[in-house]
């Protein structure tokens, strides 16, 4: 397995995965929507010019073309900002790709607050909810470079379509190469009996890691899970967490309605109703700002997470 610890940005991990897959599999093709330099797919174009197509600023057509290519036996990776990969092409991705049982990996970059200075118009909070409506679709939101690389490869191997929710700039190196990273299986980062925190995505997992330390100082022992795969949901682990702690806080860089929190709550409502709370976005649209401002503005900070976890315990 490739070691990604030398990569400087999440986009490098995304492109390393796609280029490595393309080296190994002739069916891998890549489609862009005029964001080649943003994701760094220029590297793919250079290496496989006959398998790279820039579709211009026409995302709906790009996803339709990807669907047609899939019907010809290719496995397209198509890229745009998350707002366009979800809201703008939803019907095309829903029908031409998924309803038609085609296989396309759609990359939606800059999820939620990660959109920073491009948000609010470019700040996708609702992509998780939208993508959760699509049967058999895989949704991943990796929290570090190594898991990003490995989960994209596993999504390809799964034979399903996927929505890859990922940041571009900067990178967290959380998992050394060799760590067991498995699609559909959350990773337990810390163990504790008082409360379980389920977090998704780089920003919220990073904040949650800090929150666990804050809680520790207060004598609260928290289990923390990196739920890198939103669909299919690791219900087995969720049930274990509910049984173990009886209190679950779900943290997501997205909207509450239809998000990971509701998915967890919906499952537990059926099998083991559990005391829960959520760190997510409610009735608010996105806005511009740098990451530290936005983390505070949307109450995503380690302090916010710790406060909610503490309230659950009390």
């Amino acid at each position, binding site marked *: 397995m490739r070691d990604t610890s030398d990569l400087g940005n999440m986009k490098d991990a995304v492109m390393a995965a796609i280029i490595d897959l393309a080296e190994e599999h002739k069916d891998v*093709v890549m489609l862009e929507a005029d964001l080649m330099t943003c994701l760094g797919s220029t590297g793919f174009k250079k290496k496989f010019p*006959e*398998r790279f*197509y820039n*579709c*211009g600023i*026409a995302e*709906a*057509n*790009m*996803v*339709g*073309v*990807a*669907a*047609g*290519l*899939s*019907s*010809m*036996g*290719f496995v397209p990776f198509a890229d745009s900002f998350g707002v366009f990969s979800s809201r703008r092409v939803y*019907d*095309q991705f829903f*029908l*031409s790709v998924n*309803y*038609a*049982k085609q296989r396309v990996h759609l990359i939606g970059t800059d999820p939620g607050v990660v959109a920073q200075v491009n948000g609010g118009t470019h700040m996708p909070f609702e992509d998780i909810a939208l993508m959760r409506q699509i049967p058999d679709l895989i949704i991943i939101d990796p929290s570090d470079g190594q898991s990003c690389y490995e989960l994209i490869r596993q999504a390809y191997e799964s034979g399903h379509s996927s929505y890859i929710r990922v940041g571009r700039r900067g990178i967290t190196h959380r998992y050394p190469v060799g760590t067991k990273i498995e699609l559909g299986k959350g990773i337990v980062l810390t163990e504790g009996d008082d409360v379980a925190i389920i977090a998704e995505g780089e920003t919220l997992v990073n904040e949650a890691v800090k929150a666990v330390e804050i809680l520790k100082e207060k004598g609260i022992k928290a289990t923390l899970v990196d739920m890198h795969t939103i669909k299919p949901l690791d219900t087995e682990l969720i049930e274990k967490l509910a049984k173990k702690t009886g209190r679950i806080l779900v943290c997501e860089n997205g909207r509450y309605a239809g998000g990971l929190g509701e998915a967890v709550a919906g499952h537990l409502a059926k099998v083991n109703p559990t005391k829960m709370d959520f760190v997510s976005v409610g009735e608010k649209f996105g806005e511009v700002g740098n990451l530290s401002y936005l983390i505070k503005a949307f109450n995503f900070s380690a302090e916010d997470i710790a406060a909610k976890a503490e309230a659950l315990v009390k």
Partner: protein
Amino acid sequence: MVEFIHLRKETQMLDLQTLEMLEKKAKEIRISTINEIAHLGKGHIGGAMSIVEILTYLYYHEMNIDSSNPKKEGRDRFVCSKGHAGPAVYATLADKGYFPADWLLTLNKGGTNLPSHCDMTKTPGVDFTTGSLGQGASAAAGIALGQKIKGESSFTYLIVGDGESQEGQIWEMAEFASTHKLGNLIAFTDFNRMQLDGYTKDVINMDNIDTRWLGFNWHVQRINGHDFTQLDYAIQQAKLATDRPSMIICDTIKSWGYKPGVGVTANHSMAVSEEDAKVAIAALEGGCV
């Protein structure tokens, strides 16, 4: 400029025997289509009937396909982007032997393999799922691109509606296909001048459709879409234009061959009784459309 019908040296005229075969097949497909819809009692009769000659020509005289091997490698592909014309596609595929003819009477009934709109996961011989207008066009461009990447000499044939061409995705596809020089993509516009709410001119005007496609750098021809000799000529010419995709604007009449629907603004999807069907079929068999 739009290339109006004029014969070129390399064009072979359609021989009389083939022409008679195609006309006979078109009549049979029309009758099957009417029967499918009448058995259900209602359906998209108008837009199904207007594409019958295009379908007949492609399936009986043009495409490299094999109904005993619907997924044959290297075959030509067909996408009916106006997916609601499914009943005419199904009548054609059944006659070609892709599935038993008795499936036709299951159209749109629970558990059927023949849903209202074309579905590649259900119907043998359907190359792509359509129904949300505009989407089949992009899929066809993707298929044509895939054929090129694979180095195939095959073609992708696409039918879009004139009403459907109000969708922005059609024009996103148009610029993509010409930029990537998809000379193996041959499209038809079923220019029947009508849409669900009435005449296109009264909803969104689709005039100058030929110059619109010319503007997108397509090879453009305009023909009578119910005339096999014109279809024959236009497709041969389209295949010669290897450096760009082709659009053949087909002037057609919505519901052509099902008389009760001709000129009726509600003919997009209408009730078709067994009695109406009998009268229309008798007229077709008597040589009238």
